[in-house]
């Protein structure tokens, strides 16, 4: 299996993502340059965190115009797994590949700290290795992570089981106080209708080693690995 991490100008979690994928997944991990027109045969794509184009104008707004995004769209339309983390989530929303938008945190401040999120759905390709309801401790680090969407859109997300992660207390309770940025319904991560495009604000790639405080992000990569392996068997 081969996964690709896209580097946009201003991406700064590309290396972290690359390292995490390399450590957890078997197979090859490569960097993809935003100006490329080819995904070079990867089986999954990561849009990493950072400040693409400085996040000037709006986070993710300029990066979604990058040449490689056409390829990513086609890849996703064909069912390929795409994971946008933090700035990657913002890019996916700006690109219209996920519904809603990420606006400035309720406090108007950048927030960097570990938070707890609850796994709402245990399913391939991203969360099959987690039990539903499991509480994870992962860092957030963002200034514009407040997820909003129209009520009908939110209702549809809920009804279709597309909310994968929600901010919660260490005991797994979804409360207002556990919501770090004001996101609608404590949403921390969602998937598209087909379930193969994930966007999330917390950083699972920063939580794959106990040395750094948590390994709770590793099963996300393992889930992806399991999914890709099963796809290869079917192929």
């Amino acid at each position, binding site marked *: 299996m081969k996964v690709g991490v896209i580097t946009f*100008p*201003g991406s*700064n*979690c590309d*290396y*972290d993502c690359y*390292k*995490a994928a390399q450590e957890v997944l078997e197979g090859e991990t490569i960097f993809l340059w935003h100006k490329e027109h080819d995904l070079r045969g990867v089986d999954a794509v990561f849009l990493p*965190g*950072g*400040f693409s*184009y*400085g*996040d*000037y104008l709006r986070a993710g707004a300029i990066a979604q115009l990058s040449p490689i995004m056409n390829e990513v769209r086609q890849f996703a339309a064909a069912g390929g797994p795409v994971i946008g983390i933090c700035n990657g989530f913002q890019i996916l929303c700006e690109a219209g590949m996920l519904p809603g938008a990420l606006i*400035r945190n309720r406090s*108007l*401040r*950048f*927030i*960097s*700290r570990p938070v707890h999120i609850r796994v709402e759905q245990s399913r391939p390709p991203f969360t099959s290795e987690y039990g539903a309801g499991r509480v994870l401790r992962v*860092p957030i*680090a963002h*200034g514009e992570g407040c997820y909003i969407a129209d009520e009908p859109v939110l209702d549809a997300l809920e009804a279709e089981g597309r909310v994968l992660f929600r901010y919660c207390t260490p005991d797994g309770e979804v409360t207002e106080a556990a919501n770090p940025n004001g996101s609608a319904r404590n949403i921390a991560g969602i998937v598209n209708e087909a379930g193969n495009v994930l966007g999330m604000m917390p*950083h699972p*790639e*920063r939580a794959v*080693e106990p*040395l*750094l405080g948590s390994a709770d992000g590793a099963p996300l990569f393992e889930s992806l690995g399991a999914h890709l392996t099963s796809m290869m068997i079917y192929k």
Partner: protein
Amino acid sequence: MPAAGQLLVQPRPGDPEVTATLVEDHGLSEVEYAKILEIMGRVPTFTELGIFSAMWSEHCGYKNSKPLLRTLPTRAPWVLQGPGENAGVIDVGDGLAVAFKIESHNHPSAVEPYQGAATGVGGILRDVFTMGARPIAVLNSLRFGELDGADGARVRYLFAGVVKGIGDYGNCVGIPTVGGEVYFDAAYEGNPLVNAMAIGLLKKEELITAAASGVGNPIMAVGSKTGRDGIHGATFASAELTAESEAKRPMVQVGDPFTEKLLLEASLELIRSGHIVGIQDMGAAGLVSSSTEMAARGGTGVDIEITLVPVRERGMTPYEILLSETQERMLVVAKEGREEDVRDILGRWDLDAETIGYVTDTGRYVVRENGAVVADIPGEPLVDECPTYTREGRENPEITKLREWTPSALAPRHEERDPTWTLRRLLDSPSIASKRWVYEQYDTTVRTNTVVGPGSDAAVVRLRGTRKAIAASVDANGRYVYLNPFAGGAIAVAESARNLVCSGARPLAVTDNLNFGNPLKPEVYHQLSEAVRGIGEACRRLETPVTGGNVSLYNENPRGAIYPTPTIGMVGLIDDLEHITTAAFKEDGDAIVLLGANSAELGGSEYLKAIHGLVAGDAPALDLDAESALQGALLEAIRAGLVQSAHDCAEGGLAVALAESAIGADEARGVEASLDDELPLNALLFGEAQSRVVVSCRPGDLTTLLERMRAAGVPAAEIGRVGERGGRVSIATREGTVDAPAAELAAIYFGAIPRRMDGTPEAVDAMLRSEIDRR
């Protein structure tokens, strides 16, 4: 007629005539101007005067500090690069080296906190990556007036803006901000201190220095186009803040962290490519200082055509282009014939490069405008012959008198009969309270190497691919230095080293930032020279040479001078990830041991200030032999696996140290301690005697730990046990007992700054001014 080798320099139409007033406006003294005349053999042109003024400002020329800095120790077997380059570099083994440096942006931050602090971070990052090192961490040291003093609204505005500026810049570039310090004291009102330190990692063989060598090599300007930003910023940073500096406001530089990130990646690629011979940040005094310093290091000359420099605005004069401090620019000396290769690499990162001149063998600094020479200066004297001064130093007699104060003069307040009251007050003092409000705005975990972020004694960043980690800390207690500059300087070094040792590291080297007042005042010069003497002595004893630093003088405002504040940034090495230790207590029932001896001292303490409104007494006594023994023995014990947690006693003394170890981490734990020294209650609990560390160990290791300490001649005593989560913090003494639920103390400790920043209407105002999106 120009002398042999000199070019004909014509006054440029439209430039002002060089007069005595103009010379004075450029911050040059009569002596200095006479020296310029001697070097030039004629009256300099306006452009040349600007060049001299920038190069001979305090910021670039170190004219008042150089003789003092020369007394500092700079060598050790592990020092690869000492002072004089963009950053110091030390060897950490495994073929790896660490570059690090500290820099101040005090004056720009006083005028425009957000941009001032942001560009400070940008500049220090460039200093590190131009050495070929990838930045892996930044730290900062900040000083502000009182959050709830008479000038509180302005202070909160400055504080919020500076923190946001540091955060936004480092976060965007993607370098974790892993530590720092913040103190609040009326002494810094109107003149905040903003010092930023960056640490980078490189392969030893990739070390590159900033020298312009190789006659005929092209000189290229890279990065942002030059605008009129911060013209004369270096001179500005070398003068006292007055109402006039308000008028200088349009000079403020704006940071562009996105371009910085591109520059960072492109520069590292360039350095590895072998296409260039040198690279330097166009920092303070811009193109002038970068090009002259590179030429001086290379022992060469340069010839620059100013109209080739890419500019942002029309009609810029050579003077303006040379002195502009537009951020995110670099000067690169390429190898002859490699310009296209350089452009290719930069183009990949959407950056431009223009060839603006060549390295020559004349030793002269030549600038042309459309071919006409507008400046022709012998390079070596321009860089090296800035007059330096050893001024007269004399202690202010009032401080001599302050130092004579002793605790016997103190009448305890009646509330102090309950020491719990006192502890609560101290935990609520913003200088002691948790700085979480600050560091939650910093991305501390990007790059996935931060093992210990802010909130412990030192930050720890692992070195991927090895078992090693780097530890770093910044420290200075300006109040100690104010009361006793020699002791204060030494204590700053000792505390910094102690913080590193507490985290399991061996201290290796220092970068220092000397923040002082106007050195022309004898009492300030006395502080400066004595503090440097103290730093030197401690660095020698603790074997932590100084590899670089920065001097920021004239930190005064109409209301007075700041406390003399020599910030010490220190880097240490942890040999094995297993040795990483933090300040937080770990397990119920662990034994708590105090290393070092308590004393009756109270001078300069946070207790005196917060409880009695007093700044008096002598700084705590520091015995460097005892300090060295303590640090050596503690590091040995940590390496032997005997230590569960270690936290040094600093501001607020033993009681605060115990409370911090109990409540400072995620979950508040109880403590059951008892102290039976025969000392006054306030000194025992809150005095700031040096060379003390609170450690905890598994009960089974207690005897071994105590024996080892005894063998090393380090006082050590079991003083209590770690309690359970959600327990009580209880510290018994002969005269009274501290007793409160850990959760309550935690609420005070973590709430002190948010309460002041987010609680009051003016605070909301202050916050907002910096929060409104101004990118």
